[in-house]
């Protein structure tokens, strides 16, 4: 905790021109004043309140002169060694000062502190360390640093620096400004802004803001950021003069930011030009879910949301016979049919993948997407190529004409070749609804996060909530208690992420916030649905959605891209 210095100056002044005695009263709250070594000035040094005089400019101290000549004038001064500390607040004595011919309303004010001067020796020598502060555009709170109108009851000058202290909860004024960082006779003056600024995200997830040519003698640089088009600048940090870059790891995904630098010292604050960058983002590339393709409510349904303005081409497949080739011991669907629905039912459908869009489908297989070829061009698996435009919510329903009530694999792939930042449309939500059995018949699947940066994902296992209208229920035969296992890319077993009930992990408030943000209906308190919230690096994720204690029924796995 920094010692605080608080100065009160009562000023009784005489303005004979107007045949009246005027009064100006200052309250100067000075926090964290330090000597040249960064040591708080608890019991030494001299402090001066000075006026610029009519020219509005401050002469700097010179050897032998605190004010350096010119028309600057000392309004009041304090011997800090004579003051007492009270309860963490360092008190400087109050005193009266008077308007006279040397200063008048509108004159600029500044404080000077000399850590090594004393009441007996107020004559600085060459290179004598001192601090200087004249608030103009630097945010320090309080009134303007200028002599107020005659008769002002309480003109309150404040000087607080960054960091919490007993008087304020932080400030945007760099702590460096409270140090006696200048030397008598040395070069000093207002800061200069950089000649150029630039940004990049060569290190994905961290924006580097760079600049050249700035200076702030005795001061520092404040780095600020805002959303492009917004008006509220956020202070990211304060760096020492001489620094030429700042790393910002706090960027969101796919957002356009403006960056600027404020060069600050005790004389002034100067803004740089603005550098704008769109941060990297990721997208959901694919979901594949294996489950039983039944009849009635037990069909397998894939839902997905695309968001953007341009075209997006998707490959969807529902595999039964091809799944049997991969897993010959499993009971698999004999002849799946897929129906794509956008707004209207069965807008597009396919029974056997080689019948309708053979060449288009072939073009979208690996390496264009992660879809591996189906060896038998005459198999009864289903596949479609769907091209969408703009933002839409879609479903694909898979059935089995042989009604085997057996396993199938439903897949959807984003065939966009561009990187996520360059794509005009992307998948932001994927889901699969199906019957959750036991053993091989649980819902198993995977999804791929595509991009260069991690993204916040919300993965939910919906079961009991399918009884609610708000979840498009009631769904007959829904499962009553779900559990999710999520396997991140390459994760060892001990790093698998599990969740039974969505409130178990102590992050339910964040889950609610993210659900709100992505437009997902929130679970009710106490429900036995499942949810996992992760910062997901790009890669392939595997999930298992099961019933608890052998429970079965219809469930829904959802994956939301939250940024």
């Amino acid at each position, binding site marked *: 905790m920094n010692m605080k210095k608080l100065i009160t100056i*009562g000023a009784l002044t005489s303005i004979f021109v107007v045949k*009246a005695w005027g*009064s100006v009263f200052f309250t100067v709250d000075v926090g964290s004043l330090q000597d040249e070594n960064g040591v708080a000035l608890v019991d030494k040094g001299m402090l001066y309140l000075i006026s610029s005089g009519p020219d509005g400019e401050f002469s700097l101290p010179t050897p032998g002169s605190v004010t350096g000549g010119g028309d600057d004038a000392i309004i009041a001064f304090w011997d800090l060694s004579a003051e007492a500390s009270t309860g963490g607040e360092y*008190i400087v004595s109050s005193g009266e000062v008077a308007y006279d011919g040397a200063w008048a309303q509108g004159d600029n004010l500044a404080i000077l502190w000399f850590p090594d001067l004393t009441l007996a020796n107020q004559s600085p020598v060459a290179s004598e360390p001192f601090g200087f502060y004249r608030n103009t555009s630097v945010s320090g709170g309080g009134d303007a640093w200028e002599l107020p109108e005659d008769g002002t009851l*309480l003109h309150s000058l404040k000087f607080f620096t960054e960091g919490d202290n007993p008087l304020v909860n932080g400030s945007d004024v760099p702590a460096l400004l409270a140090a006696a960082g200048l030397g008598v006779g040395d070069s000093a003056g207002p800061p200069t802004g950089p000649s150029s600024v630039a940004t990049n995200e060569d290190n994905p997830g961290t924006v580097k803001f760079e600049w050249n040519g700035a200076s702030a003698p005795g001061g520092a640089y404040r780095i600020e950021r805002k959303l492009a088009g917004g008006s509220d600048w956020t202070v990211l940090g304060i760096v020492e003069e001489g620094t030429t870059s700042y790393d910002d790891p706090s960027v969101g995904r796919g957002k356009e930011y403006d960056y600027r630098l404020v060069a600050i010292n005790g004389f002034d604050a100067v803004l740089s030009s603005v550098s704008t960058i769109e941060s990297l983002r990721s997208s959901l590339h694919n979901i594949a879910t294996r489950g039983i393709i039944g009849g009635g409510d037990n069909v397998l349904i894939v839902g997905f949301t695309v968001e953007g303005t341009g075209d997006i081409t998707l490959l969807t497949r529902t595999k039964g016979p091809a799944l049997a080739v991969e897993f010959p011991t499993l009971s698999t669907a004999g002849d799946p049919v897929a129906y794509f629905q956008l707004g209207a039912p069965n807008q597009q459908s396919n029974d056997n993948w080689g019948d309708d869009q053979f060449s288009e489908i072939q073009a979208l297989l690996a390496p264009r997407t992660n879809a591996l070829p189906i060896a038998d061009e005459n198999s009864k698996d289903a596949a479609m190529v769907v091209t969408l435009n703009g933002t839409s919510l879609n479903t694909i329903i898979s059935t089995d004409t042989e009604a085997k009530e057996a396993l199938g694999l439903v897949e959807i792939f984003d065939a966009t070749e561009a990187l996520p930042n360059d794509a005009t449309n992307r998948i932001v939500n994927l889901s699969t609804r199906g019957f959750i059995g036991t053993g091989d018949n649980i819902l198993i699947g995977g999804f791929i996060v595509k991009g260069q940066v991690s993204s916040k994902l919300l993965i939910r296992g919906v079961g009991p909530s399918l009884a609610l209208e708000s979840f498009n229920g009631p769904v007959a035969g829904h499962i009553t208690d779900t559990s999710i296992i999520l396997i991140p890319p390459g994760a060892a077993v001990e790093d698998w992420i599990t969740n039974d009930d969505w409130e178990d992990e102590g992050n339910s408030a964040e889950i609610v916030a993210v659900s709100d943000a992505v437009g997902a209906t929130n679970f009710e308190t106490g429900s036995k649905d499942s949810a996992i919230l992760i910062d997901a690096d790009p890669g392939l994720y595997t999930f298992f959605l099961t019933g608890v204690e052998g429970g079965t029924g219809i469930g829904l796995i959802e994956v939301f891209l939250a940024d």
Partner: protein
Amino acid sequence: MKNTCKIKRLIAIVASLAAAGTVVKAQEVYSQIVGAISINLPAESDVIVSFPFKQSAEFRGVLDSATGAGNLVVNVSADSLTSGAFDAQSGTPTHYLVFESGAQKGVHVDISTNTGSQINLEGGDATGLVNGDQIAVYPHWTLGSAFPLGVANEDEDEPGLRKIEVIVPQATSSAGNMIPEGIFYFSDGAWRQVGEGISAVADNAVLYHGRALVIRNNDTVAKNALFFGEVIDAPIAIPLSESDQYALNNFIGLNRPLAITLDELGLAGGGVFEETTDSDNPNDKLLVYSLTDAGKNKKPVATYYYYNGAWREESAGAGADKGGDLIQPGMGLAVQKIQVGSNPEDSNWVNEWGLPQ
């Protein structure tokens, strides 16, 4: 301590400034009149106020004798007081004595010490006092007793960026200006004084009887200050000072719970207020500060002088009788005494007022 009560009504005056009701207790039960006033504090503004109420008297009696000048000694019946009960603490008075009848009715003087039968005052003189004059002793309002939870319950979490400040101006100052005598704020459950350390408690800082004070609302939203206490319907003598150096402003509070007209002030015509003989060059002035206008460092909203047998207001011209203009309860005032050639003297403006029957 032996108290006597002579007022037989209990009236609650709440917020609207109007008497809200009268409750007559059983015949043998007497109570003072109590009231409360809420004053709006506009955002980013000063409000110059006076405390319109007093605290309960801690002693009522009659004068046995009085001696001395400059530091008056008042004697009362033997053993009628608790010795030391009214003693000043660390040089700050805690109580004041009021002469409630006789030649000095309304005059109040701070108490330095007391014994069982004697009260030693900080000032005052025996002129005109006679045995049997009624006297009373009141505790001073302090910040802690007047605003125990802060003004508008504002407990500052950033003492360096105070939302509410109570500025106690010097009692007098050169014309046109207030000079703070103390600046206070409420933080961490207690009153603090700027410049005295953020841990030092200033709950006992005195709000002197009859003095104006300034409440500064630095916040961007309006707030309300609640004043509560007993109604003063006895005469009030307000000391006024003058100077041979300059015109002198006396910042005063009238301590009345209802609005009264200028004609009811009793300020003019008694020799205390220098009447104007040349309307182009007014002598003494009464400065009135708005209770409702927004803004800091307020200038008077109206300046009155007494000319040709009536109150005049500077902007209205010397022909308009403004004696019916109202001084609102809680309003802070300044009496500007014109510079005198020599021998400046203090005087008492006695305001007599009673609750409407």
